[in-house]
């Protein structure tokens, strides 16, 4: 569903992501983990086509910046951003028009109910609390029924009920054959959801592992994460058992 090949993104001389390669299977949930500043958001923003990068990204074989590819994916940003002068329901209508959706109202109403925004439909974007803004951004990402859903730290700011609903939605989407790429640095929030995990640090993918592979090793995702992110030498260099670079994760790290 998603093929990312050797993408590199630099800000001046700083590599925000460096030679990142991975691919996602249809109907799977992939979590993108990493400490703050690891380059997770940069990878996601490259995938949705709002950054310039070197390398190639294809969504279902289509160039990710093409209009055709954009019809296939939805995006939930890390920092919720809404139009201050559109109401909650007008935001949904706006997205429906932008994506040329026809029968969206029923699904939108269902999402409003599930995320407890049904009584906030007349509120303006700037009248919502941060948590509610995040919920609306989730709804806007979901209402298009995307084949590929990309979520950047979607649990931040959500109340426990909304987190539970989001996890349910993720499971339902996976069951329906959608592909999900979820970035987070809170490992607990995705423990029971993931099929594949990509662990990033310092702009590179340090591990690319499936749940089955990790289970076979008898290790938890948290153990692997800390093994990678905390395993440093005295001078601060990261020390890996696994080989570095884009090929690092094609199998499980040892």
């Amino acid at each position, binding site marked *: 569903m998603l093929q990312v090949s050797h993408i590199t993104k630099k*800000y*001046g*001389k*700083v*590599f*925000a992501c*460096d030679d990142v390669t991975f691919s996602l299977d249809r109907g799977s949930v992939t979590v993108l983990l990493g*400490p*703050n*500043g*690891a*380059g997770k*958001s*940069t990878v996601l*923003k490259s995938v*949705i*086509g*709002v*950054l*310039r990068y070197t390398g190639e990204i294809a969504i279902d074989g289509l160039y990710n910046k093409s*209009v*055709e590819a*954009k*019809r296939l*994916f*939805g*995006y939930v*940003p890390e*920092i*919720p*951003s*809404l*139009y*201050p*002068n*559109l*109401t909650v329901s*007008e*935001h949904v*209508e*706006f*997205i429906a*028009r*932008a*994506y*040329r959706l026809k029968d969206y109202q029923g699904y939108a109403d269902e999402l409003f109910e599930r995320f407890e925004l049904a009584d906030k439909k007349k509120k*303006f*974007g*700037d*009248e919502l609390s941060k948590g509610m803004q995040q919920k609306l*951004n989730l709804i*806007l990402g979901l209402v298009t029924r995307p084949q590929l859903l990309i979520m950047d730290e979607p649990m931040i700011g959500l109340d426990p009920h909304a987190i539970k609903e989001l996890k349910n939605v993720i499971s339902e989407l996976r069951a329906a054959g959608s592909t999900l790429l979820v970035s987070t640095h809170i490992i607990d929030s995705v423990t029971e959801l993931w099929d594949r995990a990509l662990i990033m*640090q*310092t*702009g590179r993918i340090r591990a690319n592992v499936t749940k089955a592979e990790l289970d076979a090793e008898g290790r938890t995702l948290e153990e692997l994460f800390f093994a990678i992110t905390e395993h440093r030498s005295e001078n*601060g*260099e*990261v020390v890996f058992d696994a080989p570095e670079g884009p090929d690092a994760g094609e199998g499980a790290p040892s």
Partner: protein
Amino acid sequence: MTRLFFFYALHSFKNQLKKLFKTWVIVFILACFLFGILLGVGLSFLGGAVEEGIGEPPEEVETEPEPEDPSGLSREEGLILLELAVGGIALVVLVIDALTGDKSGSQIFLPADTTLLFPAPAKPQSVLMFRLLLQLGAAVFASGYMAFQIPNIVRGMDLPPMAGVALFGAWLFLLFYSKLLGVFIYTLASTYPRVKKYVRWTVYGVIALVLFPFLLWWKTSGIPFEMAGLLEAGGRFFCTLPARLIPVAGWLKGLCYHAAAGETLPALLFLAALVLFLPAVCFFIWRIKADFYEDAQAKSEETAAALASAAEGGIVKRKKPDRGDRILRDRLPAGEGARAYFAKALYNRRRFATLGFFTKSAITYLVIAAGAIFLEKTVIRSGSFLPFGLLVSFVSFYTSLGNPFAEDSRKDWFFLVPASPLSKIAWSLCAGFVKNLLDLLPAYLVTAAALGFPAEALVWLLLSLGVNFYASSVGVFLDFAIPEGVAKTFKSVVTVSFLYFGLAPIAIPAILGIVFEAMLPAALGSALLSLALGAVFAALSAQLVKTGRR
């Protein structure tokens, strides 16, 4: 995209009106309207009474082909002056938009566009056009109130009604084209970053291409090379058919000139050129292979994330020290309580200014001073400080529009700092005042040294500071008073109303000064009034801080 555009435009407009109606701002706007109506009716009544008193003018007067102009200009001179003014304004507006296009272009998008619209299935050009058209619509709306001035312009300048409409139309076209020029430069510069560094020099080149041939021609034309000859020289050089054929600026001149002269057909031809060129420019911009999404993103946030990544992981180490290493990073030198804002503002000025003193504003004023000295010694020869003082006060006023300490006041801790609201506002505004004084001082000193008139210089300096203080205070007041969700266009309309209504009393001494030929006391009076009015708005702002954020 078209349906999306109309949906967004309609709903956001309607919702902003709703929001405004919930605030006191609407009361102010209605009061302005009421004031305008009362003033208009009152003046008409007075005018009628005066005419009745004088009696009906003899019919011969009405049929005179060339009525005497009170300004002393002949009709042809008046037309030339009008055309020169239109050309000058067009040039200034277009140059400013060309120079700031790269920056203002990136501001065309709202933060929500980057997360909702950029990933949507639409071409970047369509997204750009979506925002551009909305901005143009907002510009038309914001200029709407100028339409009420058409009868005044027609009557005051003794022009045919068509000319009033043409002037208004020319203003709208100028807004459109300047916005398009800015967006064109932005699209080009963000897609081809190498273009960026040539934009500024190209614009300077175009200005030089206009000015130097004119000055050379004027010097050799036999027309006196001084203020008195400027109108004749300008008219003979710029008010010609070839000059009117220059795209946009020339067409605007042509439209206004021919409309004012009552020549319908040529005016319509220039209007047609302006109308037809508009979609052509839009189409041209739409055809540029645009890739500006990244620039429109919150750049600082991205860079900060990347730098944080580097800091944490140490992937890349900077080899060369940048300017950041030379910036002062020691602790604030002084200031406790509300005075901390004053100390911080001045410390930051020193921190970021060239040689610890020359800010961009100070350098701009110095450039203006150099230009004013040159013009005074070669062309104007007014023998006074007035041209420089007036120009710098004008610039000082316009550059200080808005809240100068917004970065502080928009944070909650501005409300939390345990000091009285008035002292927080006062010290913050005081910092702006002192910063402005430091910016203006070198330019005033240089000009006073070159031209003389030290006493006059002092008065004009006070006026420059006064209008700056007044504009800043109004900016602060409106920043606290208008809800944050209200769009910039609405804010601008309200700000402009406030500023110009407030300027009315400040202008009274200036008008008296012109009438009684005593500009110096007039400038002093205006300066003191600006400071007083500024203080009133500062006190009102303090009251708003006391009541808390809206």
